[in-house]
């Protein structure tokens, strides 16, 4: 039925455009179970463990989890010197370095070191924001060519340090631009080929590292570091763009090392690495849905100066592979990966890693115990040793592709150093940064349906945040939507034909099932912004179901990426093969009507809300995005009214009480009053604004900047613009 829909769509629709639902980007990337660790019958055992753990609720969970991994214990000590971690490299010896603060500069992907996306700047105010005008528009000139057509989703957020903006383009060209004029200082093209594009060509950002041992003016004293789609770490001099000769081989470290056979597009870095205690920490996106025997989700730390491997955290063999796998072997294949951005506490020396699910997202019986333990968890590693400190799991036995996509944020919460973790299910958790213990109440759903596909694997309990969730009430038949009774009726028929038992309805194959929220629900890679002064979390979110079906092996048409001759030649809309599992997976992301391209459920499809950081209460909640670019058959309706579109990309909050955000599929960049949720100003972008904005200051003038580069999954127009706004010069 799904397939019918898909075909119908192909026939009737030229291009189902604008009602773009969603962010798969975020959602899509995963990993898989490592073939080696797959023990056929782990089903029961792990279940028991997990249930116990979580049953013990909040704090217990973390502890129990940690225990399981016997080798490590919650290391609280600052330097992370556990007894066993001794054999680590010199990175360990590194002391915490002073971290640059956000304000005049935007030195980290998430603003300040804690990734709160909050800026103390206040020149642009609620009163004068309406006067904002474009200060400059810079073009990266990186636009899709050839086989890259239709695959661009740059999602780029620049850094600003000193006088410069530092960024990457969709295909990983590193660029420095004058932050006041938009003039290019330099660029360095690492030459990423089109066939390296995994799901989409994304480079969310870059990271900086200043070598404490280098004198000012030394080459690469401060370096820009990025991970590329063809899985390299690249370091160049922040001043000149020249590759750092001391880093790896002439500025490049090959991340395919010890991963296994090189299959372009299967293993790619799309997020900025996290630098902590002189160690560059990165995961990678492993393309979803291909095979259980997928590249490892290993997390690796490299010396920020030399590019040498400092440690590896292979969740399938954490001890054995800490310094890399033995000669001739590879990191445990198929393990959950981290495709999004981590965040680090330089003082503690910990790095917080939001892990995704295994690569075969929708079938779990073959997964190893270690996969079950760590999938869809926030993992804290001691970045000096690579040892796990704690982890906190948000989904037990994830068969919904609920990867953690949001970068976590570090705050002090009621006097405790804390980490804020939003999820795709919409739950917002606040955890103790040192121990992983929840500081806010974590509840327990019980008696959840187990389905018929793998009832022994599916967990009938799940944790939820009782402090705050962005999730809405379950769907009802009357939520079916369209532009006329006819297409609405079709959606309503589909509703009744599907399996739907509310939140966490398990996968099915005889009938489709409705997954709500879908994998692009809740908070994604745009994450949340936290106004630490006012005590407000600003969260934009999606509210979108998926309509899925497990496809029996014999019906699966798609071939895995390693068998595709030409990249991207897999049939559009065909099921992902999930080789190794008995089923492929067909996902109708956003549950769209095949005939019209419109969503099958009523709007809003996304919103933005303010949450009281003390109490978790909603202060206001409004739809985000107007209907101007959306309509049936992909025809823009030009309706100026707020409908609440799907949105991906986060916000920035300023001390003056403004929220800046693009994200929605209406291609508007807007300023919202943090007190009321009212939109005070907006500008039409030349392309989709699916990226996190930033704000900074040069010579006393505050700028707000966003990249408008479009997004294939969100079906917004592609562009190459970097647009800075400021108040008119007062002379």
């Amino acid at each position, binding site marked *: 039925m799904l397939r019918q829909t898909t075909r119908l769509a192909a026939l009737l629709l030229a291009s189902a455009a604008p009602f773009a639902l969603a962010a798969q980007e975020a959602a899509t990337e995963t990993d898989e179970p490592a073939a080696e660790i797959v023990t056929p019958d782990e089903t029961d055992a792990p279940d028991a463990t997990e249930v116990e753990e979580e049953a013990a609720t909040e704090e217990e969970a973390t502890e129990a989890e940690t225990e399981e991994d016997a080798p490590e214990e919650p290391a609280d000590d600052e330097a992370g010197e556990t007894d066993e971690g001794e054999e680590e490299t010199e990175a360990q010896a590194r002391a915490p370095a002073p971290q640059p603060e956000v304000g005049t500069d935007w030195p980290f992907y998430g603003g300040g070191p804690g990734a709160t996306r909050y800026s103390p700047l206040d020149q642009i105010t609620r009163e004068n924001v309406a006067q904002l005008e474009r200060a400059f528009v810079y073009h990266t000139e990186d636009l899709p060519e050839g086989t890259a057509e239709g695959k661009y989703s740059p999602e780029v957020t620049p850094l600003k340090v000193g006088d410069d903006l530092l960024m990457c383009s969709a295909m990983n060209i590193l660029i420095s631009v004058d932050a006041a004029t938009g003039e290019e200082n330099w660029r360095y093209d690492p030459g990423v080929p089109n066939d390296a594009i995994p799901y989409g060509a994304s480079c969310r950002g870059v990271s900086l590292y200043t070598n404490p041992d280098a004198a000012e003016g030394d080459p690469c004293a401060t370096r820009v570091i990025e991970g590329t789609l063809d899985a390299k770490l690249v370091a160049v001099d922040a001043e000149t763009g020249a590759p750092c000769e001391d880093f790896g081989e002439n500025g490049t470290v090959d991340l395919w090392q010890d991963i296994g056979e090189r299959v372009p597009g299967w293993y790619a870095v799309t997020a900025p690495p996290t630098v902590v205690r002189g160690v560059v920490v990165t995961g990678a996106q492993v393309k979803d849905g291909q095979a259980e025997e997928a590249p490892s989700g290993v997390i690796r730390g490299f010396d920020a100066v030399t590019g040498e491997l400092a440690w590896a955290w292979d969740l399938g063999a954490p001890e054995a592979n800490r310094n890399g796998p033995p000669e001739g072997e590879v990191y445990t294949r198929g393990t959950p990966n981290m495709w999004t951005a981590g965040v680090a506490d330089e003082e503690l020396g910990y790095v917080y890693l939001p892990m995704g699910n295994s690569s075969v997202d929708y079938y779990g019986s073959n997964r190893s115990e270690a996969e079950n333990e760590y999938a869809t968890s926030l993992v804290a590693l001691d970045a000096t040793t690579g040892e796990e400190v704690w982890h906190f799991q948000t989904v037990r036995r994830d068969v919904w592709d609920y990867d953690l996509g949001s970068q976590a944020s570090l705050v002090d919460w009621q006097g405790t150093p804390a980490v804020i973790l939003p999820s795709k299910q919409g739950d917002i958790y606040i955890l103790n940064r040192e121990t992983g213990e929840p500081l806010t109440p974590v509840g327990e759903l019980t008696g959840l349906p187990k389905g018929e596909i793998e009832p022994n694997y599916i967990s009938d309990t799940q944790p939820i945040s009782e402090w705050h969730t962005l999730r809405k009430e379950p769907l009802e038949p009357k939520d079916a939507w369209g*532009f006329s009774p006819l297409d609405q009726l079709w959606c309503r028929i589909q509703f009744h034909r599907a399996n739907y038992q509310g939140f966490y309805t398990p996968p099915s194959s005889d009938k489709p099932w409705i997954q709500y929220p879908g994998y692009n629900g809740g908070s994604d890679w745009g994450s949340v912004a936290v106004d630490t002064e006012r005590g407000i979390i600003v969260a934009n979110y999606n509210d979108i179901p998926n309509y899925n079906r497990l496809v029996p092996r014999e019906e699966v048409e798609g071939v895995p990426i390693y068998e595709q001759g030409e990249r991207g030649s897999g049939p559009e809309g065909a099921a992902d093969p999930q080789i190794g599992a008995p089923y492929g997976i067909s996902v109708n992301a956003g549950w769209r009507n095949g005939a019209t391209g419109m969503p099958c459920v009523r709007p809003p499809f996304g919103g933005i809300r303010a949450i009281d950081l003390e109490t978790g209460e909603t202060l206001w909640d409004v739809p985000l995005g107007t209907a101007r670019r959306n309509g049936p058959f992909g025809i823009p309706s030009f309706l100026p009214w707020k409908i609440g579109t799907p949105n991906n990309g986060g916000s920035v909050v300023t001390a003056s009480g403004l929220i800046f955000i693009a994200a929605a599929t209406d291609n508007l960049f807007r300023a919202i009053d943090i007190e009321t949720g009212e939109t005070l100003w907006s500008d039409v972008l030349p392309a989709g604004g699916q990226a996190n904005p930033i704000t900074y200051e040069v010579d006393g003038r505050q700028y707000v900047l966003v990249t408008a580069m479009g997004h294939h999954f969100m079906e917004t127009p592609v562009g190459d613009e970097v647009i800075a706004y400021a108040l008119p010069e007062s002379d």
Partner: protein
Amino acid sequence: MSAHGFSASESHSRARPNWGVKVIGIICLLLGLVLLAGGVWLIVLGGTWYYALAGLGLAISGAMLIANNIMGVWVYALTWLGTMIWAWFEVGDDWWAQVPRMVAPTLLFIIVLLCLPALYRARSTPRPTL
């Protein structure tokens, strides 16, 4: 639903058949039958009866319009009224949710009402043929 271009021909004063009304009638009949068929399917699946009933009303209205019967307009009016009441009952003042429920049926209602002059003329003009 997006039928346009009927209104021009609808009221030719010549004593010819009302092609405009016929076309509108055919559209209503076809839409009604599709809605009826889908609506019956929905009932079988355990869903609401609304679509089948609305489809039935629309189909009857269409058949009458094709036959130049002014009752077709009133049958549609009744269907439309029922639709509005049902729509309000289901989702109230959630106006985005009302879009598929109210907009197209109302546009169609306006179009059907446009048939009235031609149908009145047809009634007052002795037409030996039928």
